[in-house]
């Protein structure tokens, strides 16, 4: 019998090499793989690129503090990585590291990031999107380091930006329910970037709050089929405050 369940988050992340790119889903507080992130920090990982979707780090300030203190991160890719408020931002170790140039921050429109992961998941090299036309996004990557030029192309008289697929080495996934074969089901709006990142990464590690047997999740209601998932770990349900203030 195939059983993708690993004993612990620590074991499941143990072979991740320094320098890896890891997809981190979550939309602010919802759907963030908090336990796997903490295990990554605990193992002493370095030079990691965190490929995010919408501010999973500012959804958990304690994780930011640990990431920065332990110098885990080389680069963050996100659509909304920093606090809107200047006062809150001034106390944020991630923002301070970005300002000092110690961490690269690369920013994309959120829907463009979603398509970059989707393209990687589906074996597509790049997509043309109207998003960002008329802004600096169409010129080059938006970053505090060295920008890379982007191409645009006109279809039917309308301009589109070419955005390349983004294929992470690993994805950390958070699901409410999963089974031993890696089928996953997410709770409410905690789904967000989880399905597309699970499909995009070379190796997908899913933390699940409830482990069930194959067949227990009604097949029609499986959100991520197990084909995308290599490792499953059972984690306690962590409670958190619903705020980024």
């Amino acid at each position, binding site marked *: 019998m195939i059983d993708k369940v690993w004993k612990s988050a620590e074991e499941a992340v143990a072979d991740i090499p320094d320098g890896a790119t890891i997809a981190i889903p979550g939309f602010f507080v919802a759907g963030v793989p908090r336990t796997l992130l903490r295990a990554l920090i605990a193992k002493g990982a370095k030079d990691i690129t965190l490929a995010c979707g919408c501010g999973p780090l500012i959804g958990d300030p304690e994780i930011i503090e640990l990431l920065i203190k332990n110098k885990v991160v080389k680069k963050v890719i996100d659509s909304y990585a920093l606090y809107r408020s200047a006062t809150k931002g001034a106390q944020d170790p991630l923002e301070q590291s970005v300002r000092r140039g110690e961490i690269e921050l690369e*920013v994309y429109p959120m829907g463009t990031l979603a398509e970059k992961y989707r393209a990687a998941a589906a074996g597509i090299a790049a997509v043309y999107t109207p998003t960002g036309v008329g802004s600096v996004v169409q010129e080059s990557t938006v970053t505090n380091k060295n920008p890379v030029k982007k191409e645009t192309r006109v279809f039917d008289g309308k301009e589109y930006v070419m955005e390349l697929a983004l294929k992470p080495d690993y994805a950390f996934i958070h699901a409410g329910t999963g089974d031993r074969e890696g089928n996953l089901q997410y709770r409410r*709006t905690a789904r*967000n970037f989880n399905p597309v990142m699970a499909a995009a990464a070379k190796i997908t590690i899913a933390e699940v709050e409830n482990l069930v047997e194959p067949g227990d999740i009604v097949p029609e209601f499986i959100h991520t089929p197990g084909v995308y998932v290599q490792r499953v770990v059972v984690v306690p349900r962590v409670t958190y405050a619903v705020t980024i203030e």
Partner: protein
Amino acid sequence: MKKLEGLPREMIALRASKELKDGDYVNLGIGIPTLISNWIEGRDIFLQAEIGMTKTGPLAYGNDVDQDLINASCQAVVGLPGSAYFDIVESFGMIRGGYMNVICMGALQVNGRGDYAGWNNPARGLGNVGDIGGSMDLCAGANKLIILMEHTTRDGQPKIVEELSYPATAKGKVNMVVTSLGVFEVTPQGMVLKEIYPGLTVEQVQSVTEPKLTIAPDLKEIEL
């Protein structure tokens, strides 16, 4: 410059809410637009939250708070009969694909050609980077884009400007601007003043607005 008295934020949202029709699918940006949700309870308006939900319910309090059920402004909300959850690819597909009838956004600056800036405030001092979030996708797919904002900055500087000095979110996409002082329509002839805060003169509004305003022939007081 002395700041003119006008509508408070809640009332800017109330005025903009009157642009929404029953049956509309609507996305509300962070800031003043989010306040629109307070004015449409009981109406058949479907709020889309880009996190992955249609028919988003009102804010949740007490025992109704579910940490896995939030809107795009990271507020706990409730679901309603008919609510749907979906993933981010689907969510931005429907946004970019033009399925939203109305998009309401906040802004730092707007000009008379329908360009607006909102994602990178140079006052934050972050250089090239900032929070784009879903704003550019929402503009790309917008059928009707309404900007809700204070008419001037905290120190009284115009936010309706001749040329954007902040990085643009989108160009030529804004249809309407609702501010503390008036309601404006973006037309090929530029910015048209349609409604004005009671007691103000056209000259007073123009004095805190950079581009030359066209005055609608049927100019009236803002109706709430």
